[in-house]
């Protein structure tokens, strides 16, 4: 029986993206763009996992898959679980291989190397005995993309969706209940995207501007602000500079010698429908970039 899963929620990490049902959530990630891992859990026992590795030239995917399945088999043996597996060439993707195996859990997935970006991706969906693993895997893994067409990567988890140029590497992340932070860097430009939950509780005591100035990173900066609208939400626009004397001196010299911008620009807005506060901050980057990033955020 095939039933619709409605994979509507986009999950994006390090250039890999796929669509999952709205109640699934990212529960783990590791590594970087070169090599990494992403795990998405359903509310039940189904789990989607993606592992990627950047390669320079064509690799033998069969060899990699064998190595992976051997590892799984060895682990299953250790736990005294019988392992059965099957590999067949994919019908949709040239050179890709599909696999099914069963140890303590049922698993269906594929391995492929993208001819364009040369990324090798293993993606799989696993579940318990009575889960419709094959059906779910077919629907979710169909939506998997290993690179973006327009040079902008989608970073999306737990309902936060933001797009950044590929050159920005993730340098810091905090994924907590009620608070999300993704921080990126490309050469000297830094971008931070933050999201807070429970805006109604926060804004009972503070106005948005007060809160933005006193409870966020902006409190460390020498800044000015104006109030306005973003995405039809009340917003505070801020421009500022770092205060620390060493940073200040270095930035001044860079500004004079290398003509690099030293400003920090950002917007903090309150999205009422989702009861959240969003903040995007660009340090030492073009003003235009800030606008583009804010446009890409899907806040509600």
């Amino acid at each position, binding site marked *: 029986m095939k039933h619709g899963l409605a994979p509507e929620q986009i999950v994006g990490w390090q250039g890999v993206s796929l669509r999952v049902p709205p*109640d699934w*959530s*990212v*529960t*783990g*990630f590791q590594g970087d763009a070169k090599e990494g891992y992403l795990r998405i*859990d359903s*509310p039940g026992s189904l789990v989607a996992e993606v592992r990627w590795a950047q390669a320079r030239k064509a690799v033998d995917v069969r060899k990699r898959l064998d190595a992976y399945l051997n590892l799984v088999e060895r682990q299953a043996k250790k736990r005294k679980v019988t392992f059965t597996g099957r590999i067949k060439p994919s019908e949709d993707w040239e050179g890709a291989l599909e696999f099914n195996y069963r140890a303590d859990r049922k698993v269906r997935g594929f391995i492929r190397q993208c001819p364009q970006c040369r990324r090798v991706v293993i993606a799989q969906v696993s579940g318990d005995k009575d889960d419709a693993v094959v059906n779910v895997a077919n629907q979710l893994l169909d939506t998997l993309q290993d690179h973006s067409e327009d040079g902008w990567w989608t970073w999306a988890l*737990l*309902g936060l969706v933001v797009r950044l140029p590929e050159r920005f590497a993730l340098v810091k992340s*905090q*994924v*907590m*209940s*009620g*608070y999300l932070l993704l921080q990126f860097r490309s050469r000297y430009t830094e971008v931070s995207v933050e999201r807070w*939950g*429970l805006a109604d*509780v926060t804004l009972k005591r503070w106005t948005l501007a007060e809160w933005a100035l006193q409870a966020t990173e902006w409190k460390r900066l020498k800044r000015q602000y104006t109030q306005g609208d973003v995405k039809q939400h009340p917003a505070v626009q801020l421009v500022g500079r770092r205060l620390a004397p060493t940073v200040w001196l270095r930035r001044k010299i860079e500004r004079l010698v290398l003509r690099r911008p030293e400003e920090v620009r950002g917007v903090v807005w309150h999205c009422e429908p*989702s*009861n*959240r506060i969003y903040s995007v901050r660009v340090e030492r980057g073009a003003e235009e970039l800030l606008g583009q990033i804010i446009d890409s955020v899907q806040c509600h």
Partner: protein
Amino acid sequence: MLHFVQHDKRVPVILSGAKNLGVAMVRDASLTLSMTAGDCHSERSEESRCSNRCGCFANAQHDMTGKQGWTVTFCRDFVGATERVPPYAREMSVREFIGKFIPAVKPKPVLSRQEALTAIPIRNPLLEWERTEEGELLLKVPVEQRSLVIRWAIAAFRLPPVRHIQLDEVGAAVWELCDGEHTVESIVQQMCKRTRMSRREVEASVSMFLKMLADRRLVAFKRGGKKKA
């Protein structure tokens, strides 16, 4: 997020500031709750153990087979005991202790996530509480002191006979749902609607919050049925 501020006229202890209160999401969030329920499990195996110590489940009616679930009643000493034994002072097994530094050694929680979600939190019946005007909630924890010197000191300095613990708006909402009828799952669902946060975020926060309450013996868990609430 979920504020949990311990009000004591003598020393106000802030257990968690708003920002630190976030719970890391990229590990199994329900694990924290499983551990709590697991703790109760491990304590119930030595029935006599609590009588002179934390007293937490001294009068618990345990079902040792664990198949039919277990119920908890609170002993009279319950609250006084909280006062004497600071949170986390429960004896730690060697394995738990090493597990703090080497996660691989950490003992596995006894309950699965599903079991943890069907657990039913119950408030300590010896507590009183009231709503403040701001929608917060003030728990009154009776202070029972056995030491004569401290009792004398309390009388001499006219210290309050109760200790206050303040829960913020969201914490208060969870507290009110701990009525012995709602499972953790249904509390999570209701808080999802109320806070408009994602389910995973709410599950992590609520689990963590309930664990904090349980560590202070303000709530206990009763094992629920098999099916989801």
